[in-house]
């Protein structure tokens, strides 16, 4: 990627000359040589998609393991997964019914909204004090007052089950790979691909294997949210100080005791970071999950937006954000308490009794007072018409200016860049990336990157991949351009930290479709709208890492700067920025990863890239094409990742 190459300032003159020569050796044959160096020829494009598709279909439909059909096994798994979801839905949202069809009557109501809000408030107060209690009450109260309660509880039911499953699986895999280096290598490879593979790409295989319904949605969600949980578990376990482990050995711990009593408690803070990411990603999936049978708030957003009722879509979307924020803050508070060793606080037991007691009381009240069970429809408020009016107003008043801007940017910047990338011979693309990779990271990185890019050539997705790079480069560039400075600024305003975190969580969990459609209304169908959508989603990590990076400078250095009489700008440029480089590189990495994960969603407004290929495959249920195009997205992301990691390594070695 063009914007990653700047991070290699220490390439010596000699190396530079060699690399320049190598570049010439790539460019000249591509321009003067045979045609096949420019456009991938037929013999270089293999029917990978068909092979993958056929074998997957065979596996899902006909394969047998030890005399048992795979299909029966996966369906059995789906049924097992379904049971806890159904249980949670009964408890939280639907209750029990007797009779069938039109004679169906409610025999046991679900927990009332009052019971759940109260219980959440009690737990929040115990774990995080008054402010957390307020957050939880406001968030859940929003769902009640805006009439989103029933759908929100369906979403909560499936989200809770999938978070628990993600945590358990993530911890287990993390611990396993922590204990064995060989396992870790394999797991890391798989997790890297899973993290970058667009979810749409494995939706059809998931449906093939697990059938329609909440179970398939849950399994897809877990697959999506698992990688950060695993990564962070391994990282946190590795971060446990050796002295602590030794201390455990000395006091005669068995391996199991060492793990449960020493290593896991000591690494809880790190694991909590993984949990935070897992929660955010799970709620991020709510929309896509509702496309394959999860229902709930996600379905509410989808149906509202189909009717272009942007206000209702926004409200339901904010409901998802509210759930995300509450779950995240409560789990963080719990992890903090646990890490501080207050798990066996004497108040613990009474907390559960308190919650149980409240549930009983609230249920009894709800039995008598109808509005305490179900918030009456007439009492629900809505701001939808305001938002719809606002979008219409912007459309009428600002359209001309925006259209002029769109036309200018599209014709003068985006189109030329796109055409240049499209014209670039594939051999030059692969060669250049390999040379850059060699310059930053040596032969291994170069070989790795070249192999990944050749995968794209061989599978026949080179042209759409170039289009993806064009969208990504512009969106990532803009996200960094605005995100980093904003992050720096926020870091210098501690009072803004909480609102800023809330805003970032909103950007990450508010369903993209909610702002995609207004973007289309103002910027029409096409690449400009797509880039805006990718930009808005990818700016969150840029801001976040900008904030973290700039505030990580050792105070001694800042003092030294103050003593030598640096101005604020000098401090920023010469002290803070250099110290922040490793974190900022990680921020660039995360920004790029986020942007890649948005490619397929952006294709919903109409792009001609890999995302569109995945979408087409999904619409036509072509199993192979979806996965392989998705793997091409993953390949691009992995190349960017490898280059940045190599650059980060250099930055650390030669600061």
């Amino acid at each position, binding site marked *: 990627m063009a914007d990653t190459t700047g991070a290699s300032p220490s390439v010596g003159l000699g190396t530079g000359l060699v690399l320049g020569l190598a570049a010439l050796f790539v460019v000249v044959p591509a321009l003067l040589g045979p045609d096949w160096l420019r456009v991938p020829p037929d013999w270089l494009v293999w029917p990978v998609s068909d092979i993958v598709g056929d074998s997957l279909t065979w596996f899902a439909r006909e394969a047998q393991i030890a005399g048992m059909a795979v299909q029966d096994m996966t369906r059995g798994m789906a049924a097992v997964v379904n049971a806890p979801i159904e249980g949670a839905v009964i408890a939280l949202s639907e209750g029990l019914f007797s009779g069938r069809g*039109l004679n169906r009557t409610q025999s046991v109501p679900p927990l009332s909204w009052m019971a759940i809000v109260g219980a959440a408030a009690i737990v929040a107060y115990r774990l995080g004090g008054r402010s957390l209690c307020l957050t939880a009450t406001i968030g859940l109260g929003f769902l009640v007052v805006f009439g989103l309660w029933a759908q929100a509880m369906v979403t909560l039911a499936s989200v809770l089950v999938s978070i628990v499953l993600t945590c358990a699986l993530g911890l287990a895999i993390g611990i396993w790979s922590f204990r064995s280096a060989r396992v870790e290598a394999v797991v890391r490879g798989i997790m890297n691909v899973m993290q970058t593979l667009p979810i749409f790409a494995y939706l059809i295989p998931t449906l093939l294997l697990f059938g329609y319904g909440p179970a398939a949605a849950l399994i897809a969600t877990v697959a999506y949210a698992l990688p950060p949980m695993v990564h962070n578990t391994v990282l946190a376990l590795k971060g446990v100080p050796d002295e602590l482990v030794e201390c455990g050995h000395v006091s005669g711990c068995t391996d199991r005791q060492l793990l449960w009593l020493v290593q896991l408690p000591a690494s809880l803070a790190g694991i909590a970071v993984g949990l935070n990411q897992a929660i955010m990603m799970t709620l991020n999936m709510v929309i896509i999950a509702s496309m394959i049978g999860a229902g709930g708030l996600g379905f509410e957003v989808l149906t509202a937006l189909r009717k272009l009722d942007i206000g209702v879509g926004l409200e339901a979307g904010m409901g998802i954000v509210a759930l995300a924020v509450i779950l995240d803050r409560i789990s963080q508070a719990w992890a903090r308490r646990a890490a501080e060793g207050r798990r066996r606080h004497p108040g613990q037991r009474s907390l559960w009794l308190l919650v149980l007691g409240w549930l009983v009381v609230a249920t009894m009240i709800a039995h008598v007072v109808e509005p305490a069970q179900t918030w009456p429809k007439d009492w629900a408020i809505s701001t939808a018409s305001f938002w719809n009016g606002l979008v219409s107003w912007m459309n009428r008043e600002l359209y001309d200016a925006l259209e002029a801007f769109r036309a200018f940017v599209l014709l003068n910047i985006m189109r030329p860049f796109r055409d240049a990338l499209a014209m670039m011979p594939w051999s030059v693309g692969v060669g250049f990336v390999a040379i850059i990779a060699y310059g930053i990271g040596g032969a291994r990185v170069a070989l790795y990157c070249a192999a990944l890019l050749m995968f794209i050539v061989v599978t026949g997705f080179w042209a759409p991949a170039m289009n993806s790079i064009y969208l990504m480069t512009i969106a990532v560039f803009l996200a960094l351009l605005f995100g980093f400075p904003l992050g720096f600024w926020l870091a210098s305003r501690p009072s803004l930290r909480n609102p800023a975190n809330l805003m970032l969580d909103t950007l990450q969990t508010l369903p993209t479709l909610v702002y995609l459609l207004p973007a289309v209304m103002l910027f029409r169908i096409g690449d400009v709208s797509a880039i805006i959508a990718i930009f808005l989603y990818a700016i969150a990590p840029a801001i976040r890492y900008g904030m973290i990076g700039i505030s990580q400078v050792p105070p001694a250095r800042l003092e030294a700067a103050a003593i030598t009489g640096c101005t604020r700008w000098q401090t920023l440029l010469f002290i803070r920025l250099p110290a922040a480089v490793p974190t900022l590189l990680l921020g660039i990495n995360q920004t790029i990863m986020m942007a890649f994960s948005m490619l397929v969603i952006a294709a919903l407004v109409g792009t001609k890239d890999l995302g569109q290929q995945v979408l087409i495959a999904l619409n036509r249920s072509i199993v192979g094409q979806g996965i392989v195009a998705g793997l091409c997205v993953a390949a691009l992301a992995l190349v960017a990742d490898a280059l940045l990691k190599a650059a980060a390594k250099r930055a650390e070695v030669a600061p």
Partner: protein
Amino acid sequence: MKRVLGCTAALLMAASTAHADVPESDEPIKFMIGDWTSIALQGEIMQIILQTYGYNTESVVADDSGRYPGFEAGDLHIAMETWETTQKQNLAKSLETGKVLDMGETGLKGLEDWWYPSYMKEQCPGLPNWEALRECGELFSTADTAPKGRYVGGPVTWGGLDEERIEALGLPFEVIHPGTDAAMFAELKAAYEREAPIILWVWEPHWAPSLYDGEFIEFPAYEDACYEDPSWGVNPDKIADCGKPRGWIKKMAWAGGEEVWPCAYEMVRNYGMDNATLSALLAEVDLEGRDMTEVATEWLTENRSTWEPWTSCAQ
């Protein structure tokens, strides 16, 4: 809502004395509900009818084109809408497996083609005749398509031969493909609010043509020969010199269900609907924002003579 339903249920139950053998099974019949309103509404109507005769039914959300593996595996049992205009090949392919049944036409006619808001007529007087488009290309243009007009087609997967149509009829237009129908209607809504030029692919039954005032372009009427035989039509060298096909909307089902709920399948086969009735019901749901179950129940109580004959196997 539940109370309304309960009342009507009692009404419906009183009217029909259920046959002893119905329902044949307690297994839930799973209805596929897509992401558009009409399939959900028709599914609701059919489900209430079936429930009245004691059947257990469920709604399952699935993608329009992604539904076939579900039907072949028996995860989905009934879909009330399969459009000839977009799903013809997919359905045919799925029928070949023998695991899926064609349950007959609903009687609805899918209608889709180029569509423009009425206010464009003043600026391009020849409309709705397609020949007027030859002169009006620039009127519909934007900076990135100029001097050609901007025609918002469907997502590429929908096909529709619009590029071929433009070439065959010599229209000065460029096709823009969105990734989803929601994006198309977002552009329509934006343009309509500003009374700005727009021409796009619209279909019926859908809420948009009932909310926005406009017309379909009158192309030469579609015949199979138009898409297959270049010599057909105004352009002797090209195919697609005509409008889009107008087609059936069929019900489909999982074949295995015929053994499980034969009488329910019979009722689904008998189900019929027409464009005017459905459009009115859709407007109630989409534009008035009324509850779908309420609208469906209301129609069923008022039109008992229409649907009761469909259920003869249960009486």
